[in-house]
């Protein structure tokens, strides 16, 4: 009589999710606390910037308009100031956190030697992969939630507050940006294991960022907006709301993420895990 394994009553996905979340909790806490504190500190400095900001009023309006178009940030407002300051910290550092999380979720087991333990447990590779992917979504979401709430508190303490809808629309774009990097890095690690490492993640993020700068400087390079995810995170959303969102670019980004996930999942099915 053929052996038919009895399905265990426990939910392996839930158990695996909790375990994976715990494995990456320390780095999540460090990144979230540091970015939140840095962004809050920037906002705390805003009142001290008043003199400099007044100088901006002397800048010719055409030049000011050009600067706002490039950076999305109008330094004379707290939200514009926040957008200007968030580029390096929230966008780049946040994307680095997301990208590193993406590769680490797959590769920590291979680098740390726990892969033979984990994959010899009674859970399918699919369940393991899905649990790691869910941790990816959850931690990036929580990261942005905590940073956004911390910064929002700062906006009200040190400024006159914000348009809540526009504010969270901007953070929605930031979340999607980080998620796209995280998914691409996660999928590359799923396909290529430790060959897709932290260095590869950083390279993808920095190249995307530099491409976006080039796009902003050189008119002929405007096509880069279809390649670099930084292109769809416009600071103008913070001031003007959803009307500034380029949904075509978002759709391209979503498409890239979906293709990356499918590729990663298929390759993952065949990789040797020990």
């Amino acid at each position, binding site marked *: *009589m*053929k*052996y038919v*394994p*009895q*399905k*265990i*009553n*426990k939910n*392996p996905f839930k*158990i*695996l999710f909790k*375990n994976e979340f*715990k*494995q990456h909790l*320390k780095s999540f806490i460090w990144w979230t606390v540091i970015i939140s504190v840095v962004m809050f500190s920037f906002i705390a400095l805003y009142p001290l910037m008043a003199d400099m900001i007044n100088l901006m009023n002397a800048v010719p309006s055409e030049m000011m308009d050009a600067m706002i178009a490039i950076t999305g940030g109008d330094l004379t407002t707290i939200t514009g100031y926040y957008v200007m300051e968030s580029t390096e910290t929230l966008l780049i550092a946040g994307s680095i956190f997301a990208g590193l999380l993406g590769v680490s979720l797959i590769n920590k087991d291979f680098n*740390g*030697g*726990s*892969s*033979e*333990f984990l*994959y*010899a*447990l*009674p*859970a*399918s*590779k699919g*369940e393991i992969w899905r649990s790691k992917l869910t941790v990816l979504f959850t931690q990036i979401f929580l990261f942005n939630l905590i940073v956004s709430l911390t910064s929002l508190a700062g906006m009200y303490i040190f400024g006159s507050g914000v348009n809540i809808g526009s504010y969270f629309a901007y953070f929605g774009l930031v979340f999607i940006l980080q998620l796209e990097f995280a998914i691409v890095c996660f999928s590359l690690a799923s396909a290529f294991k430790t060959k897709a490492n932290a260095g590869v993640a950083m390279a993808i993020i920095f190249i995307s960022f530099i491409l976006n700068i080039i796009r902003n400087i050189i008119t002929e390079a405007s096509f880069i907006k279809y390649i670099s995810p930084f292109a769809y995170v416009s600071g103008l959303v913070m001031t003007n709301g959803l009307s500034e969102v380029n949904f075509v670019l978002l759709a391209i980004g979503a498409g890239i993420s979906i293709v990356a996930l499918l590729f990663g999942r298929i390759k993952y099915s*065949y990789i*040797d*895990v*020990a």
Partner: protein
Amino acid sequence: MFPIEVINLKKMYGNTIGTLDVSFNVHEGEIVGFIGPNGAGKSTTIKAILGLIKPTSGKTTIFGVDAFKNGDIKKEVGYVPSSNALYENMTAIDNFKLVAKLKGRGMERVKDLATRLDFNVSRRVKELSFGNKKKAIIIAALMSSPKLIILDEPTSGLDPIIQQAFFDILREENARGATILLSSHILSEVQKICNKIVVIKQGKILTVEQMDTLRAKHLKEITFETNYSTSPLLLNGASNIVQQGKLYSFEYNGEIKKLMDYLSATDIFNITISDCELEKVFMHYYE
């Protein structure tokens, strides 16, 4: 349906051979020693059985189920890998709790195993010595009373007392009904505990033998010293004869009566007769 069935397993890592053509079965209740030189394909075969790697061709099953396609079957398996594989930033007990939850079993056996192996479960795995990490992975493998136990170099890093305790535990597991596949370079442990051996070399199975048959083939080791004679030893069934003046040693697999007749006709003043160490037999396969 066998606890383990391997059929024409081939695994290539690019151009490097893992295994070429491996086929063998492990029957229920057996303790099988899986031996071979470094790079022979032992770990590759074990990993294929457990579904950790995808075979290039061929098939492996655990209780009739392909573990690569159906991870649920691993509920019935306790695995001790050659690497010390637990989550390093967790305590040992937290690793055990993870195993218990995923296998749907309790933690009742942990305390007993930890006591017998002299192990402190509350320590963080990364703080443990190599030997203690090995104890932890052994406990994780055996705590769920699995039907099938697969061990890859399980005693490396264990001191002799703990090794003894470990083999006692394995015998008890087998007496309980567990089937065991033990891969080891320590041939004395294979000889002590296994009732069948599978020998692999250069990716292929060389031989599968029952231990009783092996013992019968290589029966006795004899060393004797004569008073005066230094003639060459002439005895049918004697092999590996070493003569140093009046001291003779050899292996014998013929009839015992003929041996006794020969010895009684020889001018002997000192003699030792013992069972042949199977290590010597196994070493032959490593050459």
